[in-house]
């Protein structure tokens, strides 16, 4: 047994060591966030500093070239725009449709609905290069044999972002309280009428956020396109779905892998453009979510 004074001393000792530990832990957890932010800042500053001399109207209006003074990204920008358009008209409607089915119509006690649920979660975690293999085996070569054209690249990216769209849209639909649908049903609406006229409009901000994030992901992806054989010297803008193409991230990869420092500068300048687009899209998505977030 310790005397009263001893226990007071012990208590104060525990207090002090605890306070030290508490402070150290607080510093550690805060520090880990700071590390992440610091890397983001360093990454942005480094590309700005390195790419600044090359950043200008010429970069955007010129086509790729074997001379880095003349090299530009016009065909890459148009290629990326085409890819985004393909993803926008395929992955987003299909993804939202799938999300509506899973959240609003699917009976989770039926085995195939549970299978679809697990499969979607799995697909979201499949490495992007594996989607490239899918596109290579079925679209670029094999049965359909389109070659490395826009349609191949766009559809491959659509498969890639599909699970992202589905999962995020489901979350958006789930956040609309069921009382809204119940109210519509009670007034005599059919389930689809209730979903399409009440639940979906209420979930639009969340679905828009999901779509923007998916598009931003598609814009930044390079690996599946590389595997399809899309790394080519393209000095013209795509004219249609069966046109050869280049895209921003592949063009950047191409320039990074060249030994001349001049191409690295060009890569950094193109990175500023790419980062600008993707960060703007991400920021818009976050803003949208915050602006229209409803607490029911």
């Amino acid at each position: 047994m310790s005397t009263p004074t001893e226990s007071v001393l012990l208590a104060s000792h525990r207090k002090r060591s605890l306070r030290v530990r508490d402070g150290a832990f607080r510093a550690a957890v805060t520090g880990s966030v700071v590390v992440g932010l610091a890397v983001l800042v360093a990454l942005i500053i480094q590309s700005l500093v390195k790419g600044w001399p090359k950043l200008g109207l010429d970069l955007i209006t010129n086509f790729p070239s074997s001379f880095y003074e003349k090299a530009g990204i016009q065909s890459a920008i148009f290629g990326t725009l085409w890819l985004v358009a393909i993803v926008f008209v395929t992955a987003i409607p299909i993804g939202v449709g799938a999300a509506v089915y899973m959240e609003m119509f699917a009976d989770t006690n039926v085995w195939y609905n549970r299978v679809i649920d697990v499969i979607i979660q799995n697909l979201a975690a499949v490495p992007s290069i594996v989607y490239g293999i899918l596109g290579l085996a079925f679209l670029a070569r094999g049965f359909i044999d389109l070659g490395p054209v826009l349609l191949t690249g766009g559809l491959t990216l659509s498969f890639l972002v599909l699970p992202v769209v589905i999962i995020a849209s489901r979350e958006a639909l789930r956040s609309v309280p069921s009382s809204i649908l119940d109210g519509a049903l009670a007034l005599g609406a059919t389930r689809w009428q209730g979903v399409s006229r009440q639940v979906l409009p209420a979930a639009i901000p969340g679905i828009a956020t999901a779509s923007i994030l998916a598009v931003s992901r598609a814009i930044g992806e390079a690996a599946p396109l590389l595997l399809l054989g899309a790394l080519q010297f393209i000095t013209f803008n795509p004219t249609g779905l069966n046109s050869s193409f280049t895209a921003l991230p592949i063009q950047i990869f191409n320039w990074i892998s060249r030994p001349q420092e001049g191409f690295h500068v060009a890569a950094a300048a193109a990175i500023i453009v790419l980062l600008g687009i993707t960060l703007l899209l991400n920021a818009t998505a976050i803003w949208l979510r915050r602006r229209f977030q409803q607490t029911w």
Partner: protein
Amino acid sequence: MATATKVMSASRPLEGLEAGRGRLREKLIVTSLFLCAALSILVTLGIVVALVEPSIEFFATISPWEFFTGTEWSPLFKNGEFGVLPLVAGTMVVTVIASFVCLPLGLFAAIYLSEYATQRTRGFVKPILEILAGVPTVVYGFFALTFVTPLLRENWLFETPPQVFNALSGGLVMGIMILPTVASIAEDAMFAVPQSLRAGAAALGATRYEVSTRVVVPAALSGIIAAFVLGISRAVGETMIVLIAVGGTPNLTWNPAKAMQTMTAFIGAAGLGDQSTGSIGYKTIFAVGMTLFLMTLVMNIISIRLVRKYREVYD
């Protein structure tokens, strides 16, 4: 008159019930929505078929024993060697380095967001972490090659400085890339821990540190492990960073200062070389892809299971 009836009936909600045609329309809509969802089954089957068929042909030529135990990898050369171990080793080295970064930092960031940050800082820090997750991987690769590698080479404390391409810088940068994924899933799990547990511990005199490490983390453990497993799976499957910063030379070594080739980097590089369809080099892409797919699939399934477990406990 006719138009007036039409307008009236359209606004009548019971139209579907009496006419039967509305019912049919509704059924068609639900069926097409189901088809959208079922497309994911088709995609999965497509991936499996795409991988399995050429892999079988590959293993008809190259014995699995040679593939999984061989220590030399040069499949695209004439009389090439088909031992996948150098690629597996490269993948493991990079993954371990990335894990050393993303697992502790991700867990700590999650603890910060869930237990320490005020509502205001949280609302500001979380979106920035999300932006970190939105940076394209080619950009991370460029950062690793032109910023981190020179930094390491100039400040190296050991004897021989890292090569221009090395596993260390690629792994470190990859860890930062995965940090937001780990943090976000781990934080979700911590968020699901009931407030009453925290309050109870605090009432017994626990400090915030004790609440975090002895109550919240153990209670959210399955979710945290799910986050870790998914983070590791992301590291195994990442392509562009390793292709740019770690290099393209298969190298059976544990020295992170050396250039290596990972499984993903091989697949990406093989795509650049334009292998003719049906050649052994072409089939190699699928055999390595299959190995990669199976490794990540196992991890993803474990992770999904664990997430479901904590959802069941607290939701």
